[in-house]
């Protein structure tokens, strides 16, 4: 399979969106494009598993390479392993759900969908690139659509949030850029090629400088404490689909970058800085959870809980065992689906009640059984109920972390585990207050979800349950990818 299709299809969809004449056409074209992405993602999964079953053990499959700026040794080099395939699946799920829940956007519909599709192109490109230059290119492509989506279609302090997000993410990219340049000049033959660099074994002193730059840079995207401050503002000001993309896809770019670029290329740096990563991620997990307890706005609740949940991703990477890294990737997929669904539900509720304050709501389940049920499912997934994806992912991270016998990592794991209790408190409090109890006045005439909202929710729920009930397929997909990173880590200095 030619991986360029994953970039071409969003690109063509975006171009087609621009040519459409009215909002209805724009919507249907976007939906068509998003469905094509989803089909493509499944075809990729199928072909990938087929290749692996046939005994193809190459680290990256479906590699394609085109020359691009040969004088800098930059090539358009694409390829996927299991981790990338998982992330691509996640992206496709979130994109189609995002397109569906935005059905009622009336303000500048064409521009809205154009930016949404452009953003998805950036994410696909990022997950499949094996050349650090184009990886960086796609990382930055995604920044401006986010800025405009929040600034134009957002609510509340949208300009402030958009500015903060764009500047902080660009700050992260700047760190990444310097780190990448450091890697580029580290070998005799200057190269941005991930596979070549991995074979090269980057010199130790360069790893010591470049690893923190790259990890912190990507960390900004995935809410590494204390660089997470854009998350609450950005998520809560963004329009529904914008929040879904931000939390569901964009934060995962950072996690993927930390794993694929920072840890894979610079294992010595990762070992050296592992303790700091663990401390910061445990702080993020606990701080995020406690901060969520204090929130009264549903979007802020999910935004802060994203900080906490993404902490597990970084904790899994920082623990540097095969299981914990597999868990980190599973947590990325699980959290992506879950948080996208959560934001979608919040959007649906807000569209009807025109409030996001928990205290102003009650009894929604009576008038809106579908939306209420979805709210329960997503809440239970967030607090880690077995049978849903959240449990599987967090459990895997804990198991991987517990494999270390030393006290420091044991304590860190226990502290991280404690957050689950806090999560249960805030999630249960929020959803019971919202969905149960007596119906608030003025809510008598509310209607339940429309077909597009139902479809969006069902697609995401299908993903969550598919991982929750049968986690093995995802585990088998990711684990070989984590194994390669472990092999790099095992090489002595």
């Amino acid at each position, binding site marked *: 399979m030619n991986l360029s299709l994953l970039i071409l299809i969003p690109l063509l969809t975006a171009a087609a969106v621009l040519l459409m004449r009215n909002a209805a056409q724009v919507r249907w074209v976007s939906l068509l494009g998003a469905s094509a992405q989803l089909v493509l993602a499944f075809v990729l999964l199928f072909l990938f598993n087929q290749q692996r079953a046939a005994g193809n053990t190459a680290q990256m499959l479906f590699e394609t390479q085109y020359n691009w700026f040969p004088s800098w040794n930059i090539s358009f080099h694409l390829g996927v392993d299991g981790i990338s395939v998982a992330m691509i699946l996640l992206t496709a799920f979130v994109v189609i759900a995002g397109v569906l829940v935005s059905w009622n956007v009336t303000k500048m519909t064409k521009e809205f969908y154009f930016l949404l599709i452009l953003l998805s192109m950036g994410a696909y490109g990022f997950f499949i690139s094996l050349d650090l230059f184009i990886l960086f290119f796609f990382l930055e492509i995604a920044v401006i659509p986010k800025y405009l989506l929040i600034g134009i279609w957002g609510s509340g302090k949208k300009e402030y949030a*958009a500015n903060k997000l764009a500047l902080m993410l660009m700050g992260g990219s700047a760190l990444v850029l310097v780190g990448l*340049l450091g890697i580029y000049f580290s070998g005799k033959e200057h190269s941005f090629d991930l596979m070549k660099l991995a074979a090269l074994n980057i010199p130790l002193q360069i790893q010591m400088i470049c690893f923190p730059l790259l990890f912190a840079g990507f960390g900004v995207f995935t809410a590494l404490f204390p660089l997470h401050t854009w998350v609450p503002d950005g998520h809560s000001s963004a329009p529904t689909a914008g929040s879904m993309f931000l939390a569901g896809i964009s934060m995962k770019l950072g996690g993927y970058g930390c794993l694929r670029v920072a840890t894979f290329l610079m294992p010595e740096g990762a070992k050296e800085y592992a303790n700091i990563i663990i401390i910061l991620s445990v702080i993020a997990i606990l701080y995020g959870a406690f901060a969520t307890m204090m929130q009264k706005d549903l979007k802020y609740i999910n935004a802060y809980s994203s900080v906490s949940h993404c902490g597990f991703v970084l904790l899994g990477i920082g623990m540097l065992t095969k299981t914990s890294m597999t868990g980190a990737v599973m947590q990325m997929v699980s959290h992506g689906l879950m948080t996208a669904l959560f934001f979608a539900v919040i959007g649906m509720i807000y569209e009807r009640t025109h409030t996001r304050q928990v205290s102003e709501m009650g009894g929604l389940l009576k008038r809106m059984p579908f939306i209420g049920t979805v709210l329960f499912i997503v809440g239970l997934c967030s607090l880690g109920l077995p049978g849903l994806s959240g449990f599987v992912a967090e459990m895997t991270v804990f198991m991987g972390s517990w494999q270390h016998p030393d006290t420091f990592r044991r304590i860190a794991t226990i502290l991280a585990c404690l957050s689950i209790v806090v999560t249960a408190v805030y999630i249960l409090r929020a959803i019971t207050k919202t969905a149960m109890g007596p119906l608030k006045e003025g809510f008598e005439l509310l209607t339940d979800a429309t077909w597009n909202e139902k479809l969006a929710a069902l697609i995401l729920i299908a993903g969550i349950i598919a991982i929750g009930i049968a986690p093995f397929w995802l585990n088998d997909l990711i684990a070989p990818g984590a194994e390669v990173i472990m092999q790099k880590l095992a090489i002595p200095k």
Partner: protein
Amino acid sequence: MNEMLTLMKPELVLTGIIFLLLFIKLGKGMKNETLLLLIQVLLLLNFISGFFFNAEGTLFGGMYQTTGLMVLQKNILNLGVYLISLLFADWFKKSEHMPEFFMLMLSALLGMFFLISSGNLLMFFLALELSTIPVAAMANFDLEKRRSSEAGMKMILSSAFSSGILLFGTSLIYGATGTISFAEIPFHLNGSPLQILALVFLFSAFAFKLSIVPFHLWTADVYEGSPVATTAFLSVISKGAVAFIFMATLYKVFQPMQAIWYNLIMILAVATMVIGNLFALRQQNIKRFLAFSSIAQVGFILVGISSNSTDGTTSVVYFILIYIFSNLAAFGVAAAIAAKANRENIDDYKGLYQSNPFLSWVLALALFSLAGIPPTAGFFGKLFLLTAGASKGSYLFIIIAALNMIISLYYYLRVVRSVFMDKNDLPMEKIQIEPSAKLALIICSAGIILVGLLSWIYDYIQNLV
């Protein structure tokens, strides 16, 4: 004679156009519209001719030299001037003295051509004067405006001052090395204090022209006061030409003193980026805003120049090509708005997208390119400048440059935010754009998108270096 014709083709064609304009002016028989169309066609032909019958060699005993790269650099400037003639059609048509303006502009361009091709300090000085003095007259061209006269005055004074410094530096070089030929100077350089002093003087003169901090003080006032066509010419064409020759001088003539000028450039690049960016943060007038942002851009060009390698040369030429498209697009939009709605403040741009989506998208694209955001060409331009600069291994320098990209993003986004997000009770009316200006804006936008993605353009430049 034949050799001279081919080697000096860019200069000769340009001189021909200037004389043609002079005759037309004397004949007094043409309306502004027709004449402008004729000029645009001539400049387009001039640009196209730059791709054919090119040769390399030297003339007049080494005073004049030309290579494929120099021809390309001249042609990049040709392209810029052609775009200027399209973009500001509105202003040109209203102007009583349009032919004179073009004569002045093309004379300055001719000066820049000789500057690029000069192989000798005398030739260099003559060319520099030719490229500067007409620009002062151009700055003064809005005859009824006081600010325009002020701009002309400031321009001529600061130019005269920097020419004086340059001349002093030249005489010191002659004193220290005994020659004025670019080819021979490097053999006599040994880093003696006198030579360092000469380098510093020459460097300062360049810094004036490029508005490198701390020699930038004239820039904002001149940019704001001048007619917008002049501002565009100054900030794009003039900067581009001086950057080319600055780089060539440092790389070829002062190669033996590389260790000295590397530090100089590094410090000045940091100062230029930081100061340019910090001042741009506070600007309200769009022309002043672009002036300070262009100062910051020069800081990035210096990062590329500091690399002292073929990669550096290529990426600087490449960046200037991109910079021409991006900055001219921004000036073009500003000019269209200033001409029709008579507004120049960033706050006036609020809600522009509602009434003028085309102008808004072009402006956004231009600003993203200046900020270095993919997929615009500016991303590639800036990244290659930084990569070239990083090859020397001074990471602190590169980190400062990267941080400056964030500061600059802040103020570019401020304009984008005004255009797309802010509400305005008195939104701007729909602006009718001149067809030729529209064509130029489309060319610029296409350039902004394609020059980066099409990597063969970079390779083409690389092959000429």
